[in-house]
């Protein structure tokens, strides 16, 4: 059985800058895979390639065996890929609930059903007290939570999380980690996460892919990767983890 998400030989350049070169890795169904690397390594570009924001120059991306590279972002979302944005993009003028309802309408055309889905997701992400507040008035941690809630409400098979822990306090990080663990265990939700907060990566991922200058330089369990000399040199050495 093929992995849920297969990325094979994918490359993307921006006017000469090779953002991602010949990247290949798989995200098996039900797994939580971490994508790490120093700033500018090409992690977000990688996400944008999977989510359809960019079309790869070369290579193939498959979701459950079906090629999705070259599709539009909305088609990829409907195919079952939910994503968050590193720089959060809330619908600022709409309430938290309405934000989530927009996502939930991807699962169900009925507004009433979408509201029920949203109520559950909002509960899970501890946004219930703020559900009628305009999203533009939320604090950054709450906006991060809202990003996750919206993506989750689309009913994805795989969730792409782009630095959702950044800016959270350690206790909040632990709560978020617990939430993803629960979603993964209970619903079998597959997750691909870009994360700088190693505490979260270590707690969640059994498999980590390390990107540097657009190339994959290591892959394996968190323990293996953190012992890998190439990783230590390029990444952990610099960042003083």
């Amino acid at each position, binding site marked *: 059985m093929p992995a849920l998400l297969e990325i094979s030989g994918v490359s993307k350049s921006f006017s000469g800058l090779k953002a991602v070169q010949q990247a290949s890795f798989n995200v098996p169904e039900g797994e939580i895979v971490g994508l790490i690397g120093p700033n500018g390594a090409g992690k977000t570009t990688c996400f944008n390639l999977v*989510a359809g*924001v960019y079309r790869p120059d070369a290579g193939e991306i498959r979701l459950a065996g079906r090629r999705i590279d070259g599709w*539009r*972002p*909305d*088609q990829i*979302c*409907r195919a079952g890929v939910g*994503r968050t*944005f590193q720089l959060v*993009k*809330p*619908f*600022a*003028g*709409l*309430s938290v609930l*309405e934000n989530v*309802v*927009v*996502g939930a*309408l*991807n699962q169900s*055309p*009925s*507004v009433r059903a*979408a509201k029920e889905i949203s109520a559950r997701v909002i509960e899970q992400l501890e946004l219930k007290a703020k559900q*009628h*507040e*305009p999203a*533009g*008035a939320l604090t950054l941690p709450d906006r991060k939570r809202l990003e996750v809630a*919206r*993506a989750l409400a*689309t009913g994805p098979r795989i969730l792409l999380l782009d630095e959702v822990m950044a800016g959270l306090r350690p206790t909040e990080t632990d709560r978020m980690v617990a939430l993803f663990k629960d979603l993964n265990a209970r619903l079998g939700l597959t997750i691909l996460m870009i994360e700088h907060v190693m505490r979260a990566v270590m707690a969640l991922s059994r498999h980590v892919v390390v990107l540097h200058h657009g190339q994959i330089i290591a892959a394996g369990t968190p323990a293996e990767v953190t012992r890998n000399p190439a990783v230590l040199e390029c990444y952990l050495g610099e960042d003083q983890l």
Partner: protein
Amino acid sequence: MRSGWLDDVPQRGLVLLLLLLFALILLPAFANDYLITVLILILYFAYVGQAWNLMMGLAGQLSLGHALYVGLGAYAAAALYVHFGVSPWIGLWASLAIAAAAGGAIGFLAFRFGVAGVYFAILTIAFAEFARLAFDHWSWVGGSAGFFLPVANYARNDLLNLRGSPTMFYYLLLAMTAGAFVLCHALLRSRAGYYWLAIRESPDAAQALGIDLFRYRMYVVVLSAAMTSLGGVVFAFYYNNLFPEQVFHISRSIELILAPIIGGIGTLFGPIVGAFLLTTLAEGLDEIMRAIGLDVPGVKQIFYGLCLLIVVMFLPHGVWPPLAKALRLDGEPSKDHSGC
């Protein structure tokens, strides 16, 4: 703007709404001819303002060429009536179709090739200007010399052919404005309404949540164009004359968007409140200027401009949001913070 906010409007809000409608229905019995013509203007601007608001207020697509749809609707129904004796009730379907097609063509060009924001607005102006020039030279509908409908004598109202007294047009426009309100209210609570608001707030995020941007932008442009064209049909049969130089002129497109802007973009009551204030202001200024003997051309426009300036400066979200709060009709926990 919270979608579906009538859910939360207190019972007395609905009662007030019905009372207002009731008062408007009874009004012609007490109003003189002059007042009726002013009310017709108010309702006309409320109606076309609502149609424009659907596109800009909900979906964030700025059109500065809505006179195009008014004109196409007006000319289509008028030409069918004058040349073939087709009742405007049948002609309006041609108006709807032609305006929808024009909106669709503009939308297709813009959204397929990524023309957005101010460039989209320029495209809408360009199409209105094309139409103005084309109709100027199209002799079948009178060209620049104008197109005239046979003027009825007002002995009897002929609703079938829309020939009759201003009171008939008043009721017609009242029904249309109420209908547009109900339609927009329903749309706002539908899936499309949520999607339009999402596209207005952030197209990228909307697309990432599975929204087909092209499709939903096309829907709103076509719908807004079609709605606007019905205003054009009434315009043609009320005024009985059409000049391309006036009908399609950009000043008409601007005039039409003032009511929703002053009233509150993206709110259902905005276009209605705005149309009421602006038309009353314009007419009132006429009276005041005449009374104080300051009948110099242009003075009225300066005062009108000043009033607009003051509203925009002090009530950037329009008159309705604070008014709703004062009347305690807002009941909506979230407000439009987008500033558009």
